[in-house]
């Protein structure tokens, strides 16, 4: 099964909602949190997503629509 490693960054409102739980239920994706730091008003989570590639793609689009920033672990690749 293909997997992707991604970093979610969340703001205050998003921290209070179960985005990752819902991602795993709305889509056929297994989510596995590997590293995270969350404080009172923001946070980030590095996780592994396992599933069909287009399902992951759809899931990430949904997460982005919820207002969560999705980036690759290496940060932006496109450099100056």
């Amino acid at each position, binding site marked *: 099964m293909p997997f*992707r*490693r991604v*970093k979610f*960054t969340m*703001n205050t409102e998003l921290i209070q909602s179960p985005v990752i739980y819902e991602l795993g239920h709305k889509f056929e994706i297994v989510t596995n949190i*590997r*590293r995270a*730091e969350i404080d009172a008003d*923001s946070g*980030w989570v*590095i996780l592994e997503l396992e599933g069909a590639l287009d399902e992951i793609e759809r899931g990430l689009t949904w997460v982005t629509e919820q207002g969560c*920033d999705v*980036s*690759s*672990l*290496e*940060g*932006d*690749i*496109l*450099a*100056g």
Partner: protein
Amino acid sequence: MPNVQSLRCKECGRDFPQEPIYVCDFCFGPLEVNYDYDAIVKNISRESIQDGPLTIWRYDELLPASRDNAVNIGAGMTPLLRADNLGKELGLNNLWIKNDAANPTHSFKDRVVSVASTKAVEFDFDTIACASTGNLAGATAAHGSKAGMNTMVFIPANLERGKVLGAAVFGSVVLVNGNYDDVNRLCSELGDDRRWAFVNINMRPYYSEGSKSIGYEIAEQLGWRAPEHVIVPVASGSLFTKVYKGLNEFAQLGIIDSANTKMHIAQPFGCSPVATAFVEGQSHPKPVVPDTIAKSLAIGSPADGYYSVGIANKTGGSGTVVPENEIAEGMKLLAETEGIFTETAGGVVISTLHRLAREGMIGPDEETVALITGTGLKTLEAIEMAVETRTIEPTIRSFDEVVMGAALQ
């Protein structure tokens, strides 16, 4: 001589073999080259460095690839220039400019790509790749040519003509229809999918080490000491963290007495996640969507942002957000005082310097080095509105009227 012991996770400290990998399998922290300093200290000295070539490879004891295989088009040993005119303007009596626009493809990226491409050859890759809007594109394309490798340089199709051609001349540019996010995603997928040396993905631990050489050169050119302040333009934060690492390695190895340099972050208003995190007292920069004329600094999700904020804090440095309209002013000020035409990133640095001097963050006599990392010729559009020219008829009379007359007023 590579004195590399392992790649080490910056978060959990686990060691990994020297391979084209960049994240820790256990905690997903970034990997960094870990050296055998006990071996290095026996081999390195000021004299051994001075006997080396006039490129970054004079510091090869502290680089992760061998000088013998170096893909070398002459990166490094750029001038460190005394900047008394600019200093007078800003009230600084001890100011230096490190002019990295003097590199072969006119930016500091030649340093990192020289190391990345050498490593790519050592790892037996036949293809080297990057995604860039300018400086990295030119550096990768040129070193790929020199190395005789297949080269894939991905550029957003709507980039300015000059930048496209400046990289395309080396014969390896692929224009991608799409916005920055599209190019990022494509390259992340290609990075997973192809066995290529992607300079700032799977080569990143090695690539970024190349930037340490700026720190080494500054110390050597100052007469073997570290300055009190360095001002660095920040995009991903790689350069910033590695200049710091370079100065500290020199101190640790006894090549210089100490390194107590205050590290200052310079970012433009339209993309300042790292400087803003510093100012707001947060340790993790929040990703932003870049909108700045300093395109070479337009990284909204900076891989080394967190570490940069930490270093600025630890060293008593700072983070400055430069208003967009001060960028061209900074470029002009440097050009008019020191005869150096820098790109927008340099404008951000000079404006940051101006602010730090004004606010008393840098004392008048404190030794300060401002990093100029790229040339203005690649970003002509940025100063189009800021420069004035005078036009005359081909007669002495017209000259006297328009030019001398204006001078007399």
